[in-house]
């Protein structure tokens, strides 16, 4: 993506052919299965709270619902994470940051939208300052609710895991 390898030791055609070779290798059956299994149980959402659903997201990570059971570990930097959870309304100012953060994440990466605001604006649908995440990011799973219950967040994690397992996830294709 944007923060790619150009200008570094690996440039030009070498980079492209290396990537092609890597992709060819990854697409073989056993490798692919292992990779998908690893990704499925190691979804690390980047620590990027866009709005108030972050409170329920935190509750989903907290002891009562404990999302870490799924290998879901909120982590600090975009470079180490592979999942972006849009936690509520994306304002115009935040949307810019969201795209930045998304581009900083290494592939394969996934996007989930949490809360009505992150789907169609929710109660803020007619605000002049919001952006619908699906317009700017490849969102795969939508969780309704305002805010969604922590169970719904867990449900969405399971849904994403299933998508990865079935190879449907767009995050795996880029």
């Amino acid at each position, binding site marked *: 993506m944007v923060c790619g390898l150009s200008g570094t030791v690996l440039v030009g055609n070498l980079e492209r052919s290396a990537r092609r070779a890597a992709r060819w290798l990854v697409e073989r059956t056993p490798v692919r299965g292992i990779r998908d299994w690893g990704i499925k149980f190691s979804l690390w959402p980047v620590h990027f709270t866009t709005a108030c659903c972050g409170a329920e997201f935190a509750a989903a990570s907290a002891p009562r619902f404990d999302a870490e059971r799924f290998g879901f570990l909120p982590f600090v930097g975009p470079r180490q994470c592979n999942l972006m959870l849009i936690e509520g309304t994306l*304002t*115009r*100012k935040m949307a*810019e940051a969201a795209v930045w953060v998304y581009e900083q994440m290494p592939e394969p990466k996934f996007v989930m939208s949490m809360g009505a605001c992150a789907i169609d604006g929710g109660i803020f649908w*007619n605000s*002049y*300052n919001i952006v619908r995440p699906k317009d700017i990011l490849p969102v795969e799973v939508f969780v309704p609710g305002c805010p969604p219950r922590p169970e719904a967040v867990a449900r969405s994690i399971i849904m994403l895991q299933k998508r990865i397992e079935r190879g449907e996830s767009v995050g795996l294709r880029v």
Partner: protein
Amino acid sequence: MASGSEVGEVAAPIEGALSGISSELSVRGEVVSIRVRPEDLREAAERLLRLGFDHVKAVTAIDRPGEGIIEVVYHASSYGNPGLTGIIAELRTSVPRDDPRVPTLTEIWPSALYQEREQWEMLGVIFEGHPELERLLLPEDFGGPPPLRKDFKIPTEGINA
């Protein structure tokens, strides 16, 4: 239950403190409403501060296109003076809508700093002398009229699909 003194008892000293400034006083619940002219705003605020109203709770600008004015309302009260904590002094003034300029009160009430900035951004009221009148909440590239003006329309939907 020390609920501060009653509003009526405070209205009189306020009236006294504001003598010499053309002002209209009215009492509404816990609120003593004082309407002054824009040029008297600073003087009135200073006198209220001397009386013990030491902080601003809210700075509100109201767009009234029908009358061609923007009202600027300060709600001030007191932390330090136990007799005044239950009272809110509502200092209000009106400025023309096409050239809304009021003097800033940040030197008198530093607590108005961010709210004046917000009202400048949202309604285009220029607080003259404000130290940092710049974007607060909106994105840098925000265009169009100040969004809380009535002529800034946002979509609405009916009940039918």
